[in-house]
């Protein structure tokens, strides 16, 4: 018990502090780094709560993969880009604060109505986690939900193809590009003067 207590009181302030620090950062990279700290401490809290699988997933997926993606996007857009912090819609800030408070109230109410603020595990928790938490999740994922799990992989593949199709630059028809390559180059008269020259797509 004591160990739990210590770990919690070490991690919880860091978690909240890093979250606030992330919001207050002007530099996007610094904000992202604070977010990593936050995700790590929340992962430790999961471990304390007896959810080792969630702990691992939180670190691998969120602190790992998704953060890399975040940083990648930030770098892609330009690290030194300044966001203007002027609200575009009038009353946006007030509405955001009110709605945020609303969500907090909703969560408190939902927890109160659901499991309550007790420290006991909800009913059936032990049975559902029989043989260990990751094992129980694995059984669910690869037995009862085997097919949805596999179907999700097809969904992700379609999403990847979709992103590629939509993001690709406009390309010239292959046939005409080849013909152009075979034609003798006439520097004085470009074949399509009206079309702005874009980079040739690779491959």
């Amino acid at each position, binding site marked *: 018990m004591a160990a739990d207590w210590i770990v919690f009181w070490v991690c919880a302030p860091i978690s909240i502090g890093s979250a606030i620090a992330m919001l207050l950062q002007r530099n996007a990279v610094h904000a992202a780094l604070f977010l990593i700290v936050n995700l790590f401490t929340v992962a430790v809290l999961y471990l304390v709560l007896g959810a080792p699988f969630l702990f691992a997933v939180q670190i691998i997926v969120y602190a790992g993969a998704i953060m890399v993606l975040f940083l990648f996007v930030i770098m892609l857009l330009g690290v030194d880009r300044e966001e203007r912090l002027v609200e575009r819609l009038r009353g946006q800030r007030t509405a955001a604060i009110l709605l945020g408070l609303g969500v907090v109230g909703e969560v408190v109410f939902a927890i109160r109505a659901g499991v309550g603020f007790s420290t006991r595990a909800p009913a059936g928790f032990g049975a559902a986690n029989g043989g260990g938490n990751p094992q129980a999740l694995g059984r669910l994922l*690869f037995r*009862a939900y085997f*097919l*949805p799990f596999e*179907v999700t992989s*097809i*969904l992700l593949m*379609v999403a990847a193809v979709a992103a590629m199709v939509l993001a690709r630059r406009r390309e010239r028809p292959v046939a005409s590009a080849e013909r152009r390559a075979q034609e003798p180059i006439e520097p004085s008269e470009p074949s399509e003067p009206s079309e702005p020259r874009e980079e040739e797509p690779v491959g």
Partner: protein
Amino acid sequence: MLGQFLSHPPVELGPIGPELVLAGAGVLVLLGGALVRRRQPRALLLASLAGLTGAAVVSVSLWRWRGHATVLGGMVQADRFAVVARLILLGVAALALVLGHHYFERLGEERPEFYPLVLFTTLGMTLITAAADLILVFLALEILSLSLYVLTALSRRLAAVEGSMKYFLLGAFSSAFFLYGVAMAYGATGSTHLSTIARSLAGQTGNQALALAAVALLVIGFGFKVAAVPFHMWTPDVYQGAPTAVTAYMSAATKVAAFAAFLRVLMTSFQPLTWDWTPIVWGLAVATMIVGSVLAIAQTDIKRMLAYSSIAHAGFVLVGVSAATQEGIQSALFYLLAYAATILGAFGVVMLASGRGEEHTSLGSYAGLCRRSPLLAGLMSLFLLSMAGIPPTAGFIAKVNVFRAAVDAGHWGVALVGVLASVVAAFFYIRVMVLMYMQEPLEDVEPDPSIVPRLAVAVPALLTLLFGVFPGLVLGLLERASVLRW
């Protein structure tokens, strides 16, 4: 210890055989399009058609499935309803592939992604017809929606991109509704299995209020997909903006798939609440038939007109759904079959008649089409007659069946509105025929002279006539397929 982990419940892959074949074909065609240096669209087309044929063969073999009714942890239902819906979808996909191949070839654009995307869309659609769990329904719905958003934007016209964007935003919105409905159903009954939900609701053990909220939200989600009024806003823009071959595909196939899932969810899991959801479906049916038919009159673009017409047709299928009987399921299935053949053929003719790309789709360019291409004008007239519900076409039999099912179930009013709406609708179908036959050509549009896409359009035309004259050929099969168990 190891044995404990390796032991697994029996895996019966038979009932998802068509999907396995489609997934394999989709991946192969995707790789073929990406890796082969000199891309051969024709080879990709043939490989895709082979995949569809394989899936169809496996589907047919499932007609006599002797194994468990539900397999893979109760996720997939192996019944004849799914077999019939799959066969319709596979046929639509095959014809659409031929049309799309021709469309992009004539446009001079190379789109090797078209083929795998159609295969994956078809996979999502066939899977949704057999899904016996709301989670799987949702995943299949997402596969088909995601592929359709991209297929819409496959040509880089501004209208296509705009349509795709609208489709995506509204589609994502409707998915949220659907998912919320699934959550409500789980909250009401503690399960997402269609049969468990039904048992729990029948035994009065579930939370009725949550179950009703679930029905409402799921109806909204499906309403978006089948384009029922008031959830139809995206349809005209998307159908008009998308490449015509893609429009042909999605107008026919999406409706079949979404209605198959709609029927299964309402008639199995929410069957104990039939008295509560039939009024909702009536309301949708009436609004959809009236709004679709009336707004179609005001259109000046043939693709937009057909889009509104497809909205009206969703209303007629909803009439069959609202009957909530086996006869209703059968009539809805027949309507979907007739509708799929007709709308696919109609958009196919539009693709051929408007020359290259999307330049000539205004109604004015159909003036005097019979001079330039008597064959296309004839085919178009046949499809228009079928949509108007005039014998001897499949559309007539379909409408009669749907109305009879509604009347037999005691819903006189809906059937009456349906008849009135089809009279209104007949006006704008006939108007196009008048344009084609009785007016001088205004624009000098040269119709596409190719043979192969003409054959692809002739197939649905033949089916439209065949089912109109000899509906008994399929009605018996459909009757045996329209049993939904739980």
